[in-house]
Every structure is written in C-alpha cells, then in structure tokens.
C-alpha cells in the first residue's frame, strides 16, 4: 500500500512539471501584459512601459523567467501578486476554504440526490420514473451554469424570496472575521444567533448550481453500474435465498456498484473546481475561481500560474484519495500486489 502511494506520488511529478510549463507559456501567449491591462485609455509611454517590465522581471527571456519561477516553487514560493503585492500562497489559502466549502456542499447535494435517484432508476428500469430521470439528467448535464444560476436567482430569490441572491453572509445582520475560512464553521464560532442558518441559506443556491452537472453524471453512472450488478449471479442467488429487495439492492448490489461511482465522484471534483469559476462569479462567492477570473483580466501572471498549480495539486490529491478508497470499499482490490 505504502509503495503504491509513493509510486502514485512520484507519478504526479512529471504531471506537475508539464502543467507548470504549459501554464507558464500559455499565459504569456495571451496578448497584453499586466501593465497595459491597467492603463486603459490613458496608455503608457514605451519608456515607462519598459521600465515597469524591468521592475517586474518581465523583461527577462522567457526561459529565465521559467527557471526562476520553477526554482521559487521548489522552495515553496509561488511568487507575489503583481496587483495586490500579496504572496500567492497567502491569497490562495485565504480564498480556497470558500471554494472547498462550496465544492463539498455541491458534491454532497449531488451524491445525496444522484445516488438514490440512480438506484431507483435502475430498479425501475424502462419505466416512466427511469425515463423521466434520465431525461432530467441529460438536461442537467447540458445546462449552462451561468444561465442556470441566473434563472435560480430570478425564481428563488427575486420572485419567491426564499434564498439570498449572493454572497456568504447577510452583511447587515452579521459580521464575523473568518477564522477557518469556512462560513459554516465561522458562523458557529461567531456565537451570533442565526448566523449559522444564514450561512446555510447562502449556500443553497450556489450548491445547487454547482452540483447540478455532477448530480446528472452521478445519477447516470449509478444507474448503469447498478444495472450491471443487478444482473450478476450473486444478486440472483441473494434473491433466491429470500433476502428482502431492500437488502439485496442496498447491501449486495449497491456496494459493488459504488466503485465506478466513486471514480466518477473523484473525477467530478475537477469538474466542480472548474465549474466554481462561473458559480463563484454569479454568486459573488469569494473563492479561487473568481480570483482566477480577475487575474486573467488583469494579466496577473503569478496569481494565474500559482492558482492553477495549486488547484491542480488539489485535483491530483483528490484523485489519489479516491484511488486509495477503492481498497476500503472493496477489499478484493489490493494495490501494489
């Protein structure tokens, strides 16, 4: 197991290097630079432009900039934001809890609805429920996040008044400093009456919006995995033994069907982090997605590079954890043997 873990970790190194290089080059291929991006109509003289490029180290050959950057990362230094002059790691760690909280809630929403829905669809294969669910899943998968978010705001917030429009907290009623960066925890720590409920309230719409695509994927995946398992001999045997339908489906079939579902959940984390870019913008959610979008507009190279590297690290880590989870769910799978 340990050898497998070490092997997997070593395998991530070339991925990181390639990612670092591609990100570095691609960002610089985008026209414009951080100085011009800030100037607008006012423009800047070529002399002053050159002077500022030099101050930022952007006058150096690309290969040298890359070597310096890679050297910094090897020493745990992701650079400093050109715009805010704050270390990238600090900015990332300040914002990442918000993204993680939203991702976890969105995934919880997707799993809580997607798995049971997929199971029921498999059990009722071909019936109206199954067809409706698969139709909805396809719709959910194809829906543009931005459009879906705005529609939900219009209906749930503006028309029905059930949820707040955006943000993480009612700014007038509550005020607490982030301690952990997770609104659910910080609201509890604040000791303010109603703050936790308010934080939950603010999480509803963004979680639904971000969780919709994974929900559709999980529901479809669960359904097809269950259909396959339900055809297996041991399921038939269990039924023949007179076990209740609930026990057969819930214990014997579902447990084995979960392996591909968990793989899919792991892969969906990457999708969620990518989807968070849009969801965070619509819901003014102060996470890394929104930060990256602004960094693109401002050509804040260190923030973009560092942000992408750190998010990639999270995705790789999640996939590693998922890999290890296989062994726990199905003891027949043993890594490294």
């Amino acid at each position: 197991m340990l050898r497998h873990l070490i092997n997997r970790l070593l395998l991530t190194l070339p991925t990181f290097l390639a990612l670092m290089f591609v990100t570095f080059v691609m960002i610089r291929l985008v026209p414009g630079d951080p100085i011009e991006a800030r100037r607008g109509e006012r423009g800047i003289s070529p002399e002053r432009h050159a002077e500022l490029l030099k101050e930022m180290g952007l006058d150096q050959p690309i290969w040298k900039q890359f070597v310096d950057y890679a050297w910094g990362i090897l020493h745990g230094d992701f650079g400093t934001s050109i715009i805010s002059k704050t270390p990238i790691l600090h900015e990332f760690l300040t914002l990442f809890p918000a993204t993680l909280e939203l991702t976890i809630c969105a995934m919880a929403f997707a799993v809580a609805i997607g798995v049971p829905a997929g199971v029921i669809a498999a059990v009722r294969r071909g019936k109206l429920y199954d067809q409706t669910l698969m139709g909805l899943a396809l719709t959910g998968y194809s829906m543009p996040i931005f459009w879906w978010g705005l529609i939900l705001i219009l209906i749930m917030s503006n028309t029905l008044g059930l949820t707040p429009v955006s943000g993480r907290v009612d700014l007038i009623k509550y005020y607490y400093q982030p301690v952990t960066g997770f609104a659910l925890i910080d609201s509890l720590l604040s000791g303010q009456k109603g703050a936790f409920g308010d934080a939950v309230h603010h999480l509803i719409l963004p979680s639904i919006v971000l969780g919709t695509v994974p929900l559709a994927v999980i529901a479809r995946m669960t359904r097809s995995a269950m259909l396959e398992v339900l055809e297996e001999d041991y399921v038939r045997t269990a039924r023949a033994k007179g076990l209740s339908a609930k026990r057969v489906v819930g214990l014997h079939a579902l447990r084995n069907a979960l392996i591909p579902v968990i793989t899919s959940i792991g892969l969906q984390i990457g999708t969620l982090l990518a989807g968070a870019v849009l969801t965070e913008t619509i819901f003014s959610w102060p996470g890394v997605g929104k930060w990256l979008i602004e960094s693109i507009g401002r050509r804040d190279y260190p923030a973009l590079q560092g942000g992408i590297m750190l998010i990639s690290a999270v995705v790789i880590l999640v996939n590693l954890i998922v890999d290890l989870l296989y062994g726990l769910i199905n003891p027949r799978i043993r890594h490294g043997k």
Partner: protein
Amino acid sequence: MKSVKLFGALLVTTMLAAGSAYGKSLVYCSEGSPENFSPSINTTGTSLDAARPVYNKLVQFEPGGTTPKPALAESFEVSPDALTITFKLRPGVKFHSGVNGFTPTRDLNAEDVIWSFERMWKADHPYAKVSGGSYDYFNDMGMPDSLASIEKGADDLTVVMKLKEPNAPIIANLGMDFATIHSAEYAKFLMDKGTPEQFDQIPVGTGSFQFVDYQKDAVIRFKAFDGWAGKPKVDDLIYAITPDPTARYAKLKANECQVMIAPNPADLDAMSKDPDINLMSQAGLNIGYLSINAQKPPFDKPEVRQALAMAIDRDAILKEVYQGAGQKAKNPIPPTMWSYDEGTADYEYNPEKAKEMLKAAGVAEGLATDLWWMPVQRPYNPNAKRMAEMMQADLAKAGINATLVSYEWGEYRKRLQAGEHQLGLLGWTGDNGDPDNFFFLAGCDKDGKPAGQNISKWCDAKFNELMLKARSLSEQPDREAIYKEMQKIHHDGVAWINIAHSTVFEPTRKSVTGYKISPFGAHEFQDVDVAE
C-alpha cells in the same frame, strides 16, 4: 496553544458582532476587489472607489459636480504670477483612531501634505518604493514637470506649493484621488513596526468613514467617522463585492444592496419600470470619437477628414449603439463642461457631398483603409464593434472600403498610441472637470510632435499655443474664450470625429436619498441616507 487561538478568535468575533448590526447601514454593490487602499498608487476606478470614503484632499469636487471646493485646505491663494499657491489648512482635522493599532497624537498639519506629495515625487522618500512605487496618475497629470517645491509656510497649517510655470488646471488636478492626503504619523508608526506595506492595505485618513475590515472578493466595511466634515448619515458603509451586473441588479431588487455600480445596458428598461428602484442618469463627462491618423495620407489633408466627418451617420449610431442614451457630439468636450461652445456648426451627414469632397481632394473611388474597434465596452462607447460596422457601411457609401481590425485591449491601446491605425475608435472620460483634461488629448510637444495621448497625431501650432496660454491664466472667463477658439480649430481641422457623449446611469433603491452621480464615475456616500 490552539485553544487559546480559538478562544481569541471567538472573543474577537463576538466583540465585532457587538459593534455592528444595529446601526443604520448602507450597502453598495461594487464590481470588484481593490488592488489596495492607497489612491496615490492606483489608477482603476474600483480601487479608487474603495479608498475614497477614508480620505480627503486639499480641494474636493462638489458632490455631483466638477467645481473644486476647499476641503482639507480651508482656503488657497494663487500669487499674481500664478507660480505660487498657498494653502491654508483647516485646523483641528482629526485622523481616524484605532485602525491597525494606530492612535494619532496630533491633528493634520503641513507635514502630512508634504509627506503625501513627496512620496509620489521624490525617489529618496522612505515610502517611495513601498508597494511597487508606481505613481501613474501623479506622473500622467504632469505633476513632476509642474512642481518646483512644496514647503511648510509661516505656520504648521500653511503649505506653499511653487510651480515651474503657470498651470491653472493644477487646482482641478489636486481634487483628483491621487492627491489624497495621508497621515505622515501613521506612515512612521508602520515603518517603526517594520510593516510599511500595510500603509497601502489598511488605510488611515481624515475621511467620513473609518476603515474596519476588508475580506478579499467579498466585502469592505467602514464605519462613520465624526470628523471635520461632520458625521455621515449612515453608521455603517458596506461594499458588497459583486462582479456580475445581473447579480448586482438582483441584489438591488432584493434590497441586499441599496446602490449599485455599472448596470447592464440590457437591464435599464426594466430598472426604469421597477417601483422600488430609482434609475438616476446624468450626461457623462465623456467623449467617444473616431481618431483619424493625420500623418497617414490621404488623411493628412483636412478636407479628407472633413469629408469623413460628413460620411458618417452619427444619428443612426446614437440610436443603435447608444440606444438613445447619449448626445451627438460636435465638440471634443461635453456640453456640461464650462467653456463648451454652443456655436459650433456641426458637420451634417451628407454622403454625396462627402464623395464629392473626396474626389476634389484627389482621393480615388474605392480608397482602402483600416478601421479599428475596441474589444471592450466603455462608458463612452457601449458597443465599439457595432459602431465600426455601421461606420464601415457609411464609408462604403462614400466610396471608402474600410477593413475592420481589433486587438486585445492593452495591445489595441498600445498600437493606437504608436499610430499604426488609419481610423480607430477610442474615447475619454474626464478626470477633473477642467477643459484642459480633454484638450490635451490633441496636444503636441514643443517640437510639434504629437504627445503620448494624441493618437490622431494631429498637430496644430495655433491650437497648441492656445492650450499653453490657457494653462497660464488663472481667471476662468479668460480661459473660456481661449477654449472656445480651440474648439473651432479642432472642428475645422477635424482632429478627430466627435461621435457622442453617453449618458451615465446609476440605479439606487428608492429608500436612498442624497446620492449624486459623480461626473467622474466616482461613488461617494458622505451625504447619503437610507430610510429604514
């Protein structure tokens, strides 16, 4: 140790909670996070807006207007030779106390004013290099070339500013955000602590609101400060950072914020019909124009540029691109600005006459040109691509084949400045309400070469001479006569084709009173109240 930290955090949050939530609050939906809280090193409206509640300047524009009024300076006097300005500072002006552990021991004095200007000006200033040390606005407004010295006068409340040459617009320049007055004592406090970079992140000033907290990409909080200008009408001012305009509008409708920036043009109609929303509008202090590169033949001939001005149907552009929310421009300065010349005879739309004029000027039918359009939406041009397409069709009627060109915004601006274009769309929003702040866009240096902002590369010796003369005069009526003459030269020479001055919209909840749209796009809340 961890439990001590947790207890501390709990204590802080409880204390913070106790200090908030019960006063009268105003929430402003802003569009982005500030880069920092120091106007001297900022150029973006988002960052300047975020710092403005905290600070004051020597002179400030009247709310909603363009006239500089005494602020931290209760009066100022310009010497007869216009080379010395003496500012008398307001006595008893307090700085915010308790922010970032700083407690001021004295009121505002000349030291603060000198410190603030010298930071931007002198390379050996202890804070010159802090936070990157780039003072773009100070440099762009030509302050290093204008200033000879800034010194303490006869007493602690007198500041004497000496100029190298007369410069009447400088008073308006001093009303701009870069000329904010900081606390020299706070700067020293942080330098002694070894954290000078906090100076630009945790602001201390004399403004109507005291900084409380900033959570990146989420919220900025201020509380009312009973300072020299009196206590504001709201207790808490909260900036809810909301980047998406549709989400801002939804928040305004849900009363999650009471004032919002930059509405989506597509939402304006719905806003105007919403019973809870007051859609305020004002003629913008801006100009959208088509630059004609006067150094590239055949556009170096004035009659060719005049023909182009007659070939473009600006009424149609106003209707389609601006959706009627603007005014056709005939002068380079907007009509709300003093010295605007009502008497200018605008170019009529007449493609046939334009064709004839081109022929008379020796321009062959089917002349090929490029026509650049900006890849961004700006207050003075809501849809540059559509505008360029309409112009392309108009020019075709006059026998000119225009090819549309665009680049990434920064690249676009750089190439225009280098004069790579033949025809290119751009515009300007005023910084300070002084006409010079528009005319300089067509200015040239003493050698007759186009200055950096002059993308049309049009140089007229008389125009330039008058511009310099107007700067040397301190009496407004004298300057006004000169600017009217300059408008005539600009019109006849077609330094660029004036397209339109757009209307600026700002929606607020109907419960908001006292809010005024700033001609400069600033957002100010000193006099704003909100009904509970």
